[in-house]
């Protein structure tokens, strides 16, 4: 199979790339969360989202998740906070009040333009740094109750708008659409929807003004600039932004610029959205440009590369089209080549399916093998689509599914399914079940299972109540009004995307933390307490309370009962039983929008900090040790090789879960020097997907290099290291120390 070699990078792009990397490693893009509780439960009781970097709600010793923030830190708080409409007047929980703040905020956010950049758009502040983001006390009380039982969630920031709506209408078109619908609702006397759309209008007018400020600034810079090439680029920026402030994009350059400024305007909410199928979005513009002979392939590649260098958001390539044929097009190649050219921090995903263009797939596998930083993420479109259909998405929504974030996927513009930022810590119900069995003097494994079932249900109820309370306030407290502009329903109905009856699909996905630990624990208990009767549950309970102190032999016995991830039928059956159980429990809960809860076998970082918070577990785990990451076996417990792990993994039907990535850290010497890496990554990934796997995060990195990087983070060669941490990427040296330690512990694969 012939695949392209890495395209050469121009010196202009190389400068932009260096600027980008510098921003990332100098902690200008850090994403903070409040504390360890947030990582574990996805809710801290302090912030309503990830921690605001500045402002009244920025407090305490926060944890740096990595350079995973679209925002560029300026080192200062938003200078006009005191003049925000909600500060001068009154903070009200209404879309109008929110929109007035948003319009003021975005029009007082500076246009950021660096020299020689054709694609512009950055921002320094999120709205929650200037507007108070706080749910009422009743919601918080339910949050604390859920936390106590082992669950939480922020209900915010993770969906995927359909940018084709905005690309087709432009800002004037969107404005017109809002006004037409507003007039309709006014005529019917639907004051709520009319009011929402009046607020929407304010949002769009603010964004248009903000985009014009880029044009104005670019013209000023052009005037001052002496170097003709730089001046010409400023002029192009001015022209492009001027045009797209009003009209729909007319060519590829305008389309990419439109996307970037939409993302910026939207990210000011505090979002972490995905943005859909980039190849499909851009292909019509590229075709039109080619037909008019106004663009070369290299120019197209360079424009996409600039979009990637602005931030590196979640986009996807590949997949199937509406007719279920391969959707790979010329822009799929151009986008992948663009990443291949610039490399580094990025969140591109390539969606495999049984009919994918084999050369394109081989190329994607080669790129991730060569860069070794989990990009592109390899995902299984067929499982994505079938999973959406199984949930209840209509065919017309499911075909367009797009990899959108860490492990999650969306039908762009057709859902607000609350992905990735809800958590259920499965260890806690198990701990309570053990207590219950011991205190009630019960004596069979099925008694333990019944107590576990009871406790899991309690936790799920608490989570449901907390989520529903949040949902009832969300459209009033923090509507997602920019995202709503590029969705199918909100403008037509005058209902924010966070509201009920707005978009077609509004499920609640819940990250389940500790599934392998719980299933390994239950299996060990079944074997040693109930089958072999070697220990009583009471003895085990005491051992766990003391963190196995003085009981190393006993701990070893629990540790060496077969574990999930080794293709052992008993251990794996328990893992399937536990996963199926939590799925059934969650699916039987409904949110107030009329959709059920769904489990995700993934949790982005809670496993690193959860250990001491939860204590020792019956799988032989010491309190200080991390939990398993997602559905991956515990570090060092998959002794039977990668294929055994994969067989264990694929005993789960991933259509029933909202993602469950296989995380692999490989040493570079796995690949023979003379062999193209794609030639090995492709058959490996293809086999995994044919067996029903859903996602592979592949890092190729030398253990020694990471260890040196921890000691000497300032060396340039260490600063360049990017890793796919779990579902997201980060520069290794920027990461929290505990994350680094956990990551290094994983790098144990000399071979698969």
């Amino acid at each position, binding site marked *: 199979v012939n695949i392209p070699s890495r395209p050469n990078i121009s010196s202009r792009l190389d400068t932009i790339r260096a600027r980008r990397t510098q921003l990332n490693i100098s902690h200008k893009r850090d994403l903070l969360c409040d504390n360890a509780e947030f990582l574990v439960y996805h809710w801290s009781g302090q912030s309503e989202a990830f921690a605001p970097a500045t402002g009244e709600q920025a407090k305490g010793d926060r944890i740096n998740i990595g350079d995973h923030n679209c925002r560029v830190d300026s080192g200062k708080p938003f200078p006009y906070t005191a003049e925000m409409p909600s500060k001068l007047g009154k903070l009200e929980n209404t879309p109008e009040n929110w929109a007035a703040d948003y319009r003021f905020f975005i029009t007082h956010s500076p246009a950021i333009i660096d020299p020689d950049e054709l694609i512009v758009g950055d921002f320094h502040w999120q709205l929650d740094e200037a507007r108070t983001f706080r749910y009422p006390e009743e919601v918080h009380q339910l949050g604390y109750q859920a936390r106590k039982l082992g669950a939480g969630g922020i209900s915010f920031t993770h969906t995927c708008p359909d940018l084709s709506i905005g690309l087709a209408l432009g800002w004037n078109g969107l404005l017109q659409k809002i006004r037409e619908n507003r007039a309709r609702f006014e005529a019917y006397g639907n004051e709520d929807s009319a009011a929402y759309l009046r607020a929407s209008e304010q949002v769009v007018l603010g964004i248009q003004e903000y985009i014009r400020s880029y044009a104005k600034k670019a013209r000023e810079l052009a005037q001052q600039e002496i170097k003709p090439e730089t001046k010409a680029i400023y002029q192009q920026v001015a022209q492009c932004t001027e045009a797209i402030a009003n009209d729909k994009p007319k060519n590829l350059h305008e389309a990419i610029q439109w996307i970037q400024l939409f993302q910026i305007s939207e990210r000011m909410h505090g979002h972490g959205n995905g943005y859909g199928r980039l190849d499909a979005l851009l292909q019509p513009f590229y075709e039109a440009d080619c037909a008019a002979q106004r663009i070369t392939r290299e120019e197209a590649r360079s424009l996409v590369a600039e979009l990637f260098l602005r931030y590196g958001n979640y986009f996807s390539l590949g997949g199937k089209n509406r007719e279920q044929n391969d959707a790979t097009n010329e822009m799929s190649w151009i986008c992948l080549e663009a990443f291949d050219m610039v490399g580094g921090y990025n969140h591109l995903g390539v969606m495999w399916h049984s009919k994918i263009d084999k050369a394109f797939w081989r190329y994607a596998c080669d790129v991730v093998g060569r860069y070794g930083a989990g990009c592109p993420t390899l995902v299984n479109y067929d499982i994505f689509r079938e999973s959406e259909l199984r949930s209840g998405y209509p065919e017309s929504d499911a075909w367009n599914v797009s990899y959108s974030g860490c492990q999650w996927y969306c039908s762009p513009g057709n859902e607000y399914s609350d992905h990735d930022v809800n958590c259920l810590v499965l260890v806690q119900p198990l701990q309570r079940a053990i207590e219950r069995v011991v205190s009630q003097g019960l004596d069979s494994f099925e008694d333990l299972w019944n107590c576990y079932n009871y406790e899991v249900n309690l936790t799920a109820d608490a989570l449901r109540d907390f989520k529903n309370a949040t949902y009832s306030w969300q459209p009033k407290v923090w509507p997602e009004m920019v995202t709503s502009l590029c969705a199918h329903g909100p403008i037509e109905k005058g209902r924010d995307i966070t509201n009920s009856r707005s978009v077609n699909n509004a499920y609640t996905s819940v990250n389940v933390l500790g599934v392998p630990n719980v299933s390994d624990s239950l299996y060990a208990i079944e074997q040693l307490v109930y089958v072999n009767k070697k220990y009583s549950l009471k003895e085990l309970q005491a051992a766990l309370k003391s963190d196995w102190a003085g009981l*190393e*032999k006993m701990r*070893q*016995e629990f540790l*060496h009962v077969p574990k999930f991830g080794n*293709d052992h039928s008993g251990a794996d059956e328990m893992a399937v039983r536990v996963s199926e159980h939590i799925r059934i429990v969650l699916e039987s809960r409904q949110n107030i929008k009329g959709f059920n809860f769904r489990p995700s076998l993934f949790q982005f970082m809670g496993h690193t900090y959860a250990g001491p918070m939860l204590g020792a577990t019956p799988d032989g785990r010491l309190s200080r040790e991390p939990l398993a990451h997602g559905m991956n076996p515990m570090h060092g417990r998959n002794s*039977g*090789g*990668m*294929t*055994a792990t994969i*067989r264990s993994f694929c005993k789960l039907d991933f259509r029933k879960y909202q993602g469950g990535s296989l995380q692999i850290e490989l040493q570079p*010497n*796995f*690949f*023979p*020097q*003379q*062999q193209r890496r794609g*030639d*090995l990554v*492709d*058959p*490996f990934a*293809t*086999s995994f997907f*044919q*067996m029903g796997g859903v996602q592979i995060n592949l890092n190729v990195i030398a253990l020694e290099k990471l260890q040196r990087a921890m000691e000497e983070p300032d060396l340039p060669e260490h600063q360049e290291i990017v890793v796919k941490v779990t579902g997201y990427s980060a520069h290794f040296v920027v990461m929290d120390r505990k994350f680094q330690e956990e990551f290094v512990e994983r790098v144990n694969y000399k*071979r*698969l």
Partner: protein
Amino acid sequence: MTPSQKTGLIFNVHHLSTDDGPGLRDTFFLKGCALRCEWCHNPESIQSPREVWWNKNKCIGQLDCVRLCPTQALSFSTDGISIHRDTCNGCGICVDNCTAQAMEAIGETWTVDQLVTEALKDKLFFQNSGGGVTFSGGEPLKQAAFVIEAFARLKKEGISTALDTCGYLLRPHLEELLACTDLFLYDIKEMNNEQHRRWTGVSNEPILENLIALVDVISQQKKQPDLWVRTPLIPKRTASRENILAIGAFIKKNLGGRINRWELCAFNNICAQKYARLEQDWAFSNETLLDRNFSAELLELAKKSSGMSEQVFLTGLA
């Protein structure tokens, strides 16, 4: 098909290996060896009978192993557990009774059926990558009957087979192996016979004669198996200009056009810890890795002398 009761002693399995043949492979390491190479990277493979060894990182000091050993082959001191190889009969009672799994068996008995079942689980990976099963060791042909029967069964199941061999024991099994082997990975370590004897304990004459015989028979076959020659580059031993030139000349003269690849496999010292666990000294413990420039020079010499510039590769560099 009647289930096979034939058994082999296997001391390690690597899944999805890229080291021994094309694609993604399962490599089974068979116990026992015909040679005694000074630099051996799998010292635990050399003895044919099953053995045990101790992993000090896992040990929690219960000492059930010492207490339960029927031949009193284990002793405990401040240095840890010592295994007296003369008295140990490999019964494995210590292994079975070690809670922490710190006592490990070197060698497990596998039936052909078990092996085929295990390999079939990875068949999809083999098919998609052009890989298969490799038998390595030790010297697999110390257990030739097992190899031949297992390969025949694997072939019937549509799995590609590769034999990693030193060639010393090949001749009596040549015909049978040709029927069930898709790839021979054949070592030529050293051309100077005196040195070969000193470093490996045997003459290289049968090895080279067997290789020529193999090439002769292969060229008469309708469906010809692939043949890769492999040379370990051992510092101060085989990694010399003279040796590479001599092997290259041998290949050109005797094997010209009949081999698919010649791999120069760079020395590494990862196995030092295995010698430590076996309580054996290793002459190469403190040996530095091969210099990059020197190995590149050897690669060039190999290409020139063998006349197969496109098919000579250097592998295993750090």
